[in-house]
């Protein structure tokens, strides 16, 4: 582990992530298009204020926080790969574990982008720097432990750090052609597994500790969040793995798909059961506290903006569950990604539009007002997703190239001493590793 190898590692990763087939460039350009749109959208929002969104004093959280809540779940779901790989010693999972960590990194980055979009004053984000941090001028204040949001900021950033460490350390060791040092690596991995649960639990607590919003004020929320997350996250991972399997030489065993699809199946089943419990609990007594849910499921007072969304989500989730129950279909690797797509979209609706927004309808004084995201909100949200996909694509490409040995550290000395045929140097003359120009 030398400074030089780390610098080479960085350079090689950079080159690898920016070089690829035409298809790869096309995909990056496609994502880049949405990112450029979001640059415009963010400029509008920052200069004109949040008035360019359709949020208002009645519905104060919208599209941005919906996506945030959903993506925290996706980030947490990386644990469905890491956990079996190291706790259950599943060697198929171990092979792909770094990809799970990369999903987590991309998802947390998206979460942070959505939070920044949601804030009215992102320029004042430094107010959150705890005063004990050794940052010279920025002495913020942290309402910890009272405010759930402070917990969320801590666990999310911590989770990002843990996963960045795990993924890059793993890649770096592979790059050097060595095994990871278990004494360093494993404790961090174990910690990350526990931490994954904490990020989604804390996000649930952030929302369900507000009695002013009866729809959220349920102890069912944390477990519902985790089950839907462990259905949606692996669904996304299955889709990504199917594509990776198709376009690269990277080996992903059948067992991986089998395991992940089982996780999706059972977590989705539990999630559906929890949704049923919620509906029965609320609709049976049908108090004023059920108004939000009634608005979502059946519409109220002639307002039904979210009703089609809710029922679409139900059809997708129940349909996906039934299909996955049939082993033949679940094991069909051609069909599986499409079913996972259904589940993913269904849960995205159920947890985003179908959960965050109706919490504000009606307002605490009983005012029903509908909300549909504005163009700017949609553009910015798509941009954030595009950033996430780009991060995932680039990191995954590097990880795969390192795993397959395409990219690895070529120690100048070892090349000279080991190679029977000194490699020819394209530029002519003495290769730099022989002339000593690159240093010892």
């Amino acid at each position: 582990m030398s400074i030089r190898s780390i610098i080479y590692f960085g350079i090689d990763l950079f080159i690898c992530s920016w070089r690829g087939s035409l298809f790869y460039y096309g995909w990056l350009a496609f994502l880049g298009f949405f990112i450029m749109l979001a640059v415009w959208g963010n400029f509008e929002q920052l200069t004109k204020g949040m008035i360019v969104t359709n949020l208002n004093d009645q519905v104060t959280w919208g599209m941005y926080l919906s996506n945030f809540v959903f993506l925290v779940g996706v980030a947490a779901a990386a644990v469905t790969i890491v956990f079996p790989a190291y706790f259950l010693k599943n060697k198929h999972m171990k092979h792909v574990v770094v990809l799970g960590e990369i999903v987590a990194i991309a998802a947390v980055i998206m979460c942070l982008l959505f939070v920044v979009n949601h804030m009215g004053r992102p320029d004042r984000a430094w107010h959150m720097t705890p005063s004990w941090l050794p940052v010279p001028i920025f002495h913020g204040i942290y309402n910890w432990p009272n405010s759930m949001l402070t917990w969320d900021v801590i666990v999310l950033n911590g989770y990002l750090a843990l996963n960045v460490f795990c993924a890059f350390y793993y890649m770096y060791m592979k790059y050097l052609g060595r095994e990871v040092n278990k004494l360093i690596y494993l404790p961090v991995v174990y910690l990350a597994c526990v931490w994954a649960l904490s990020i989604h639990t804390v996000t649930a607590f952030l929302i369900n500790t507000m009695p002013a919003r009866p729809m959220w004020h349920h102890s069912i929320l944390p477990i519902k969040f985790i089950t839907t997350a462990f259905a949606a996250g692996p669904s996304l991972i299955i889709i990504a793995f199917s594509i990776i399997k198709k376009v690269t030489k990277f080996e992903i065993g059948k067992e991986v798909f089998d395991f992940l699809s089982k996780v999706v199946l059972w977590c989705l089943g539990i999630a559906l059961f929890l949704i049923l419990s919620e509906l029965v609990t609320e609709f049976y007594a049908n108090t004023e506290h059920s108004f939000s849910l009634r608005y979502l499921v059946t519409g109220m007072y002639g307002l039904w903006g979210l009703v089609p969304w809710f029922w679409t989500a139900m059809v997708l989730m129940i349909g996906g569950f039934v299909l996955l129950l049939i082993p033949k279909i679940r094991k069909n690797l051609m069909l599986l990604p499409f079913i996972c797509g259904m589940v993913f979209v269904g849960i995205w609706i159920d947890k985003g539009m179908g959960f965050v927004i109706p919490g504000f309808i009606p307002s605490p004084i009983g005012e029903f007002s509908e909300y549909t995201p504005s163009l700017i909100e949609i553009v910015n949200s798509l941009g954030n997703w595009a950033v996430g996909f780009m991060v995932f694509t680039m990191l995954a490409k590097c990880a795969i190239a390192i795993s397959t040995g395409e990219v690895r550290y070529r120690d100048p000395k070892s090349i000279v001493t080991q190679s029977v045929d000194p490699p020819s140097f394209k530029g002519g003359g003495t290769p730099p590793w022989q002339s000593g120009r690159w240093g010892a």
Partner: protein
Amino acid sequence: MSDNKKNKFKISDYLADITDFVKSAKPKENASANFDEVMGEATDGFPRPELLGKIPDSEARTESSSGSAWNALNNQESSGRRDFLMKAGVFAGAAALLSGANDAEARTTWAEWFQGNYRLMSDKERKESVKRLEARYTEEYGKKTFVDDMPAEKDVLFGYALNIQKCIGCRRCVKACVKENNQSRQDPEIEWIRVIRMEKGTFNKGDMDKGYSGLSGEKHGIQVGGFAHKPAGVVLEGQHYYDPKLVPEKDAFYFPIQCQQCEKPPCVKVCPVRTTYRDPDGIVVIDYNWCIGCRMCMGACPYWARRFNWGPPNLSKEEMNPKTHYFGNRPRMNGVVEKCTFCLQRTRRGRYTACVEVCPVGARKFGNLLDPNSEVRKVLDRKKVFRLRVDLNTYPKFFYFID
């Protein structure tokens, strides 16, 4: 009831009244920055005359309001890294980038950006901050602006009582509040008080058979009576967009709602950066310069009391009220939360709130809850009083009562 009839008048009339009211409260042009003149006379009846005209450092303040506040600030010995950075930043031209406007404003913006949380500031920093704001508002609104930083008084706990039997729903309090507290007038239009019109219940014979009897097929509604889901003055059946020619209407009563200054405020608990907190006199204040606009507090408030500046507030020079307080009615900025503060710029100086003063039927009572002779305490002692949503244990200091 006879009270109500006496007070019937056209809604359009009250607008003119409000204009007069605000005019009378406006300072004379070119008034000297003498505190008493700027803040106006006390209204009689308020039980704390001893507070009137009490300003710890009116001299220093007077200087700052004379337009050269920034110079005064710069001449002060600057200490600490923050000041250095402020200036370095100015020289680097970054400040100009920040706002694109004139230099003084850019510098103020830059300095404000580095400003700490008010509660953590030293006395000197607080004074500087207030002076900066005064200079900025004076320039921006073209009138001498005073930013008070009067802290909470000892042995004072503010409380409010509202007589729902008397309220006629005229919304004078709403308009007076907007004028007094420099709310944004449009895009976004912000009002801190909302008057909810509560429909009176009706029971008609026709609803006899409209109930639900389950599978039994009987007519009269064995499971649910036909008179369920009918308005009977439940909060969720009221609404605040009513617009009749005359108030009060026969089939309604009115229920004004605003920040309840909870003793156990959920909004304070959820704020991640302690922007909003409970001051010793019981008022839940917001440091507008510290708010990050996360809107957690808006989600947590059970009384829908908080408003967000969705865009840069629109407040005209003419309408701006120059008698302000750091935590009260000073003009806000884009992207921060605000709410009713019991007019602390007035009440901490011994005056009544704007809504109390304007209410034509005397439905609103205000005072010190720790003083047994205050109006609000007398209401609590003698009337039938209730608070809103007691099940949430927020312990509001805003009481509703009937005679």
